């Protein structure tokens, strides 16, 4: 993967500026992480509060390297049949039927059981072969000719057993299929795992990955993000927006507003033709930022104070 893209992966700062061209404003740490992941050929484990652009990073990396993005959403009960491969049972059954019809031809003239069995062996066994293999995301990523970006989303939602199953893939870029053998990556994919920290991940998994924590962006960075996502917002309003949101993040809310919420809010304010942030507009649009009624009730009496603070 890295060999084909050497010129695109020359340095972290280059990555940073090119991501910017794609509309993904990132900090230096993020760019360094992607750079190192490609150079060291190690997976990145991305953590951080929801909505700071963890999944987006994988998407943009794929877009930048113009390689396919293979995404696997994890959930409780996910197993290898859904993640790695499955046999095409229907076709396998049909195959056995076909085989049965042909059995007469194959066995014609055979004398004794031994010879029959021998002929059967010569017939070639394709019951468990690549032809009947249904490829799931992990296998697809390994077999992609041109390399791929594999996004394993919300790994913390999967079971611990699945995590253990991933270890071989993450360290050696290969998986074992009992019926076929070991499948090695044709071109090592770039692997990104995201986690929302609903449970502690195992040490073995963490050891195999680079660890990137994406925090809420600094106000300055967030302003740039808004500027790139919602270019119509004027600079003053943008500053107000970002300052207000970062004030909210200081409060003890159930769910803190993330970057994606700020963007949504900015878009909404644009649609409503708001030129300046005031208490009335805030009252009306607060539900775009806060997703829990309790949070809204907590913030509403504070709106005036928060606005004055900025002034």
């Amino acid at each position, binding site marked *: 993967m890295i060999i084909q893209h050497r010129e695109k992966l020359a340095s972290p700062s280059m990555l940073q500026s090119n991501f910017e061209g794609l509309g993904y404003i990132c900090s230096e740490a993020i760019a360094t992480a992607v750079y190192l992941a490609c150079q060291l050929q190690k997976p990145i484990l991305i953590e951080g509060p929801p909505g700071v652009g963890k999944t987006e990073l994988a998407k943009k990396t794929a877009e930048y390297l113009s390689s396919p993005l293979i995404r696997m959403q994890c959930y409780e009960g996910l197993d290898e049949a859904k993640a790695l491969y*499955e046999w095409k049972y229907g076709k396998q059954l049909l195959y056995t039927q076909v085989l049965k019809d042909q059995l007469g031809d194959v066995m014609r003239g055979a004398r004794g059981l031994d010879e029959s069995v021998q002929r059967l062996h010569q017939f070639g066994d394709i019951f468990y072969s690549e032809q009947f293999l249904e490829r799931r995301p992990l296998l697809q990523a390994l077999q992609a000719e041109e390399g791929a970006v594999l996004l394993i989303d919300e790994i913390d939602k999967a079971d611990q057993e699945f995590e253990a199953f991933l270890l071989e893939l993450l360290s050696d870029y290969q998986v074992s299929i009992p019926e076929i053998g070991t499948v090695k990556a044709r071109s090592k994919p770039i692997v990104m795992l995201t986690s929302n920290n609903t449970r502690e991940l195992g040490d073995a998994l963490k050891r195999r990955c680079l660890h990137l924590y994406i925090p809420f962006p600094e106000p300055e960075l967030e302003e740039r993000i808004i500027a790139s996502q919602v270019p119509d917002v004027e600079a003053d309003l943008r500053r107000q927006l970002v300052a207000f949101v970062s004030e909210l993040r200081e409060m003890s809310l159930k769910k803190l507003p993330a970057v994606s919420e700020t963007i949504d809010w900015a878009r909404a304010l644009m649609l409503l033709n708001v030129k300046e942030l005031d208490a009335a507009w805030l009252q009306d649009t607060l539900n775009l930022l806060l997703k829990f009624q309790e949070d809204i009730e907590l913030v509403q009496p504070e709106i005036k104070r928060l606005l004055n603070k900025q002034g």
Partner: protein
Amino acid sequence: MQKAMSTFIVALRQAGLPISQAETLDALRAAQITGISDRQQLKTSLALTLSKSLPHQEILEEMFDQYFVEPDSARLTDEPDEPDESPADAPADLPQGDGASSEPPPEAAAFSPESNLAKQLMSGDGDGIAVAMVAAAQDLNLSDINVFTQKNLFSFRIMQQLGDEALLADINRMANTPVGPKQRLQEKREQLREQVRDFVEQQFLVHAKNKGLKLRESFLQGVKLSNVEFHDYARMSELVRKAARKLASQHSRRKKVSKRGMLDVRKTLAANAAFDGVQFHTRWKATKVDRPKIIALCDVSGSVSRVARFLLLFLYSLQDVLPKVRSFAFASNTLEVSELFEQKTVAEAVAEILQIMGNMSSNYGSSLEDFQAQALRQIDNKTTVIMLGDARNNNADGRGDIWQQVYRQSRRVLWLNPENERSWNTGDSIMSSYTPYCSQVEPCQTLDDLNRILSRLLKYS
């Protein structure tokens, strides 16, 4: 470079980061790839490869700033119009600009000092001195520094290594030259000593501070719970919580194959391939999460008051990390505290329980009656019951029959006694009336005991 990295990693390990060899290699490779010229980038690379969680990342960044000191060359180069020489990024870095670019000040030209150090000082070669200082520190094994009293010794030795003696000789020889340069050189020597002291101080902070902490923690693990000093409470709580988290992560998600659930098509087909594809044997898929169900009872009466705090702490942490724990505290009667634990922080919850019931005299009989009414019905053959108490009953009826019933209904009963085994059944202790109805009875006097016993418990439940 390698040596600087490895001592840095040793320091990180002492600060509690679990860093394996594989990660060390990764870090070295990352440093090679990104290069060491950009300080911020080196820091990011190390954080990416060495730290695996946010708290660890913060520790690492703080240590990085302390360890890879930006050499304070500005202090020793007092020429304002000198071209912007970027200070070396890591002390172990090779000298970048040898200071050769800067012209020696005019006074120095009049008098030529003999010692190397004096020349460096006069020419304002801050980087060169900083590098020499770090090299000296490595020769002297500064990373072995243990206690703060060693700081002066190390400072002195580093000065010696840098060539302080020759410098002094130079200064003395300058007695007959004009006053200006001599004073200047002396001032510079003072500045240098100051810098060396700062450097040693920082290294001490990096290396020794955590060493002491480690020592203290390993000591606390083995100390009797009843003997823990008040000022160690905070650290002890942290240890207890760590232990509980570890136990839970090891054991909380054990799975067991059961016979209910969905048809496993794959296995069924494989199993019936021999029968011409006719579905003869069925294979079932379902796996069932089998989490241990725990009911814990904790004595908080006067007789165990010194230990009660830790037992409660442990209970709290256990409930925090395991999904199905019901906790009860009792002295003369029993109170379910599961909800309290859920709603309040650990300090508040423990304080509240101790305030309600602490220092009351214990009555196991009436407490068990309460327990019978509140929880006995919920005890089934999957439940593990843990009792933390000393069985000192103030000569009342112990109601061993209730405990017998608990024992019969539950999967296991575990009694942890904070007293030494020899003092069981002495005085008003009625341990012997409960012992027959326990799967296991253990003295539990230290945090180590608690860990060992509960880890065994969780393994089998």
